[in-house]
C-alpha cells in the first residue's frame, strides 16, 4: 500500500502541536528536552511501510517528520500489527522482548526521552482523531500512548491509585502479594477476553462466508 506523504505530514504536525501544547504547560520539561538535543528517533513501520522520525531541535521542541536523512540515535522497527500488539499488551516489556519489534542504536537515549515525555500530559487522542477520524485515530493514539507511556506504567499507575483508594477507604488493606495476585487475575481476564473476542471475530467471519455460500 502506498501512503500519502501529506497525510503522514498532517499527523506529524497534529502530534507535534499536541506535544507543544503540553510542554508549554510544563516549563520544566522544555529545559529537560533541550538537554536531550540532538536526539533522533526513527520509527519504521513495515506492512505498510511508513517511517516517522521524532527529534528534538535546538530550542528543545519535539519535532516530527515523515522524511529525514539524519542518522537516527535509535531506531524502532516493527510491523503495524506488532506495534498494535504492543499497544494492547498487558505486559509491553514482554511484548518488546518476545515480539518482533527491533530496536537498534542507543536505547538509553530512548528511555531518557520516554521518561521526560511520559510525565507530560499530552492529549494524543484529539489531534489524531481530528486528523484521521475516530477509528484509525483512536487506534494510533493507543499505539502512541503505549510507546510513550508503556502500558506497564499505566498499569502501575492504576495499581497505585487502586491501592490508595483501597487504603483510604479503610475497607481492607491487602498485602502487596494479594494485590499482585489480583492484578495477574485481571491480566488473565484481559487475555481471555482478547481470546474470546478473536474467536468471536473468526466465528462472525465464518458465519458470513456461510451466508454467502448459501446465497
Amino acid at each position, binding site marked *: 500500500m502506498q501512503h500519502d506523504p*501529506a497525510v503522514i505530514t498532517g499527523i506529524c*504536525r497534529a502530534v507535534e502541536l499536541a506535544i507543544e501544547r503540553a510542554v508549554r504547560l510544563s516549563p520544566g520539561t522544555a529545559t529537560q528536552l533541550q538537554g536531550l538535543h540532538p536526539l533522533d528517533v526513527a520509527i519504521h513501520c513495515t506492512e505498510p511501510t511508513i517511517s516517522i522520525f521524532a527529534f528534538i531541535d535546538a530550542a528543545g521542541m519535539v519535532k516530527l517528520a515523515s522524511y529525514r536523512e*539524519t542518522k537516527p540515535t535509535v531506531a524502532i522497527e516493527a510491523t503495524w500489527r506488532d506495534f498494535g500488539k504492543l499497544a494492547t499488551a498487558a505486559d509491553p516489556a514482554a511484548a518488546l522482548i518476545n515480539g518482533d519489534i527491533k530496536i537498534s542504536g542507543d536505547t538509553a537515549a530512548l528511555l531518557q526521552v520516554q521518561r521526560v515525555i511520559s510525565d507530560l500530559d499530552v492529549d494524543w487522542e484529539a489531534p489524531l482523531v481530528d486528523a484521521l477520524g475516530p477509528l484509525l485515530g483512536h487506534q494510533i493514539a493507543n499505539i502512541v500512548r503505549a510507546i510513550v507511556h508503556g502500558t506497564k506504567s499505566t498499569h502501575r499507575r492504576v495499581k497505585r491509585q487502586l491501592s490508595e483508594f483501597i487504603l483510604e477507604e479503610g475497607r481492607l488493606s491487602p498485602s502487596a502479594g494479594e494485590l499482585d495476585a489480583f492484578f495477574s487475575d485481571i491480566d488473565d481476564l484481559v487475555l481471555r477476553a482478547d481470546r474470546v473476542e478473536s474467536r468471536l471475530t473468526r466465528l462472525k467471519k465464518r458465519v458470513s462466508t456461510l451466508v454467502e455460500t448459501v446465497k
Partner: protein
Amino acid sequence: MNTQDNQSDETTDFGFEQVKKGEKAGRVREVFDSVADQYDVMNDLMSGGLHRLWKRFTIELSAVRSGQTVLDIAGGTGDLAAKFSKLVGNDGNVILADINAAMLSVGRDRLIDKGALNNISVVQADAQFLPFEDNSIDCITIAFGLRNVTDKDTALRSMHRVLKPGGRLLVLEFSKPTSPLLSKIYDAYSFAALPIMGKLIADDADSYRYLAESIRKHPDQDTLLDMVEDAGFVDCRYHNMTGGIVAVHRGIKG
C-alpha cells in the same frame, strides 16, 4: 525578458489560451500583481490548508542543514523562505526570489513581521535566468511556480547551473490525480469553485481561472521527471501527494 523573445511568433500556453512566448511573462505578472495581497488567504482557502502540508513535506525532503544556502525561486510571499531561515540558522543563507515585485513586497513585509529577515535576502529574478554564480547553492525549491514559467527547460537548466554539485532541486507543483474519480471531482472543484471563490474573496475570477487552467496545462508526473533528468539532474524521483493533485519532484546535481 529579452527582446528576441518578444519578436518571436512562437506561442506558448497561458492557461488554456495560446499567447506569444514573449507575452506570457507579462500576463503571468498581471495575474500575480492582482492576487498578491490576497494570496496567502486564498492559498489556505483553496487548498483547505493542505498547501501547508505539501510544503512541509517538501521542506523535509530538502534535508537542509544549518549553514547551507537555499534559494526559493518563485517564492512569492515567502512562506518557504521563513521556514528555511530557521533551518539554516545564522551561518546559513536564504534567498527569496520571484519575478514579481508585488509578491516580493508582500513577502518582505511578512518576513519583517516574523522577524525572519536577518539571514534572508530578497531578489527579483526570473527562474529562467538566475542571477547567481555557478555552483553556489545547496538547495533550490520552486513551489507552485514552474507552471508559470515561459520556458521550463531553460529554467531547470538555469537551476542546475547555480546548484553546487550534490545540491538538490525540489519542484512542488500541481500534477495529475492518480484516480479518474478524484480527477473528475478535482476538475469540477477547480474550474467551477476556484473562480467563484476568487471572485468572492479577491474579486478576481479571471486570475483564479488562469490558475486552474495553468494547472491542467502543466506536465504530468512522468513528463516533468523526464524534464528534470534532461536538464542534467540525477537520482530523480517524485512523490505524489493527496492522490497526485500535487507532486514533489527531486533531482540532484551530479
